[in-house]
């Protein structure tokens, strides 16, 4: 049975060219420490700085503005905690939204315990933030605005550029969690007007365990990890050079191949959404236009997401569901609930995220399997009445 992988929002497979460059890097015995002042160290520096340039180019930044981290979560923690700690004398108010990823939400929760105030801005039914709400939420005490670029559950892309204009006018630092969007849609840090931006390699066919944080020059920020002088004193600890080399290549490929990838993903998404619309009582979450090209979040009434997921897995189709079935009311997706979705519907949600390796044939197979599992599960659902 062939596996069909529709969970690219969790991790993407390595691009063959990324795999190749990483294998070569290992085979060439590049083990050096970039801080060593000899030729072995220099080889590591070369690899590191080459990758830094490639990543910078992906988001239209300068190489020196890129800090390599261990993943998207670390980048986000670094951005938020780093600014909060550096500016704690100036203010303790942070503005965010109520659809952020856990790595933002839980970081903010910790800061709240330390006495910071957080304003979580609500979203509309598509998951969009109103920039006016952001403007109203900013006070004299505000030190940071952190709003995600694209939502990882429903795919909606936030109006970051408009919010960036507001934060600049108000002279407040602005971080965007671009982990779900980085390498998948075009990003220009100047256009977006952000001071900090987080991305992760495993979202664009690079390896996992490596991410990057863009820091605009002169941004007041503390390191998250203290120690040596690596990453220009902004992130201590010897870098994951192998991962970084992979990330650099993946960033270069993402930049070059982006138009073709987007076209392919949109074709798959359109075909899948058209099919989903033929099922009765299903809802497609997120904004119909302003969203990630390869992500479809669908809520199926009268069934539970996890049971659908297991049935699809039985047919070799890998998808994800945000809601872990177990936890009672407490586990419905906070993103879907924030968009006004009721708890019952939120529990019956599946996230299909396509990748460059998927085909229209995969879509047909997945849809057929989904139709079967929905019919099977509805046949024993106490809420479902045939229309």
């Amino acid at each position, binding site marked *: 049975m062939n596996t069909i992988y529709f969970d690219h929002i969790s991790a993407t497979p390595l691009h063959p060219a990324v795999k190749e460059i990483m294998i070569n890097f290992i085979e060439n015995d590049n083990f050096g420490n970039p801080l060593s002042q000899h030729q072995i160290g220099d080889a590591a520096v070369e690899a590191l700085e080459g990758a830094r340039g490639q990543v910078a180019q992906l988001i239209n930044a300068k190489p020196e503005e890129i800090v390599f981290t261990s993943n998207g979560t670390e980048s986000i923690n670094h951005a938020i905690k780093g600014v909060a700690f550096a500016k704690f004398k100036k203010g303790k108010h942070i503005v965010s939204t*109520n659809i*952020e990823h*856990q790595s933002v*939400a*839980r970081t*903010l*929760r910790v800061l709240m315990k330390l006495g910071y105030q*957080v304003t*979580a801005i609500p979203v509309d039914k598509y998951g969009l933030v109103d920039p006016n709400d952001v403007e109203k939420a900013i006070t004299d005490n505000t030190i940071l605005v952190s709003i995600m670029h694209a939502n990882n559950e429903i795919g909606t892309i936030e109006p970051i550029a408009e919010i960036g204009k507001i934060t600049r006018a108000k002279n407040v630092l602005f971080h965007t969690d671009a982990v779900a969007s980085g390498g998948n849609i075009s990003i220009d840090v100047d256009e977006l007007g952000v001071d900090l931006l987080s991305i992760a390699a495993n979202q664009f066919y690079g390896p996992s365990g490596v991410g990057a944080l863009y820091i605009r020059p002169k941004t007041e920020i503390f390191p998250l990890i203290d120690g040596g002088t690596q990453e220009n004193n902004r992130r201590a600890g010897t870098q994951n050079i192998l991962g970084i080399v992979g990330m650099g290549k993946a960033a270069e490929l993402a930049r070059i191949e982006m138009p073709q990838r987007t076209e392919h993903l949109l074709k798959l998404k359109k075909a899948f959404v058209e099919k989903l619309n033929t099922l009765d009582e299903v809802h497609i979450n997120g904004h119909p236009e302003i969203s990630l090209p390869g992500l479809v979040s669908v809520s199926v009434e*009268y*069934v*539970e997401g*996890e*049971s659908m997921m*297991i049935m699809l897995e*039985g047919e070799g189709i890998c998808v994800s569901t945000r*809601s*872990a*079935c*177990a*936890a*009672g*009311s*407490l*586990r*419905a*997706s*906070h993103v879907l*609930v924030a968009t006004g979705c009721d*708890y*019952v519907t939120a*529990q019956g949600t599946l996230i299909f995220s396509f990748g460059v390796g998927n085909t229209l044939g995969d879509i047909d197979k997945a849809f057929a399997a989904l139709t079967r599992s929905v019919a099977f*599960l509805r*046949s*024993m*659902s*106490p*809420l479902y009445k045939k229309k």
Partner: protein
Amino acid sequence: MRYILNYYAVFKEGLMQYSETVMDHFKNPRNKGTIKNPDGIGEVGNPICGDMMKIMIKVEDERIVDIKFSTLGCGAAIAVSSIVTDMAKGKTLKEVMKITNKEVAKTLGELPKNELHCANLGADALHMAIIDYYNRIAGKQKDASKEKVDYIGKRKGKCYCPYCDTVFLNETLFCAKCGKPTARENK
């Protein structure tokens, strides 16, 4: 060595880990459907919690002669419905009242820890169907069900920690007893 094993158990907890028995009952559920004019209906859970289980019984001479379920929930909840109805079929009401959550869980084999509460749902629904039957024939044999009514009352409409089963009075971010996160992120 023990340390390593414990660590592994913690690691495994988060993963989907259904036994073969659970998968079999999930894929080929026994007794699914409804009964026309049932003698008793037991309904537990709440779709808000992600699980809802409805069990219908037909009783003759204090014995369950037919039993059907309909369930909205995860794989474990469906498997529990299937097995609990199988366990009850043909048994006397007294015998069925003695079926405990532990027994259901044991029959099913290993359930992921955060889905153990699904096993509780099964026995609860079963007992409620029988209590409903007793209530319908009114007045008779009330004593037999008294203890169980109490027990169900304690859980009804509540949500509990998926890991340690503690009942919450209010929505909380972390379970007060075992410290595991439970909640929706910021409200």
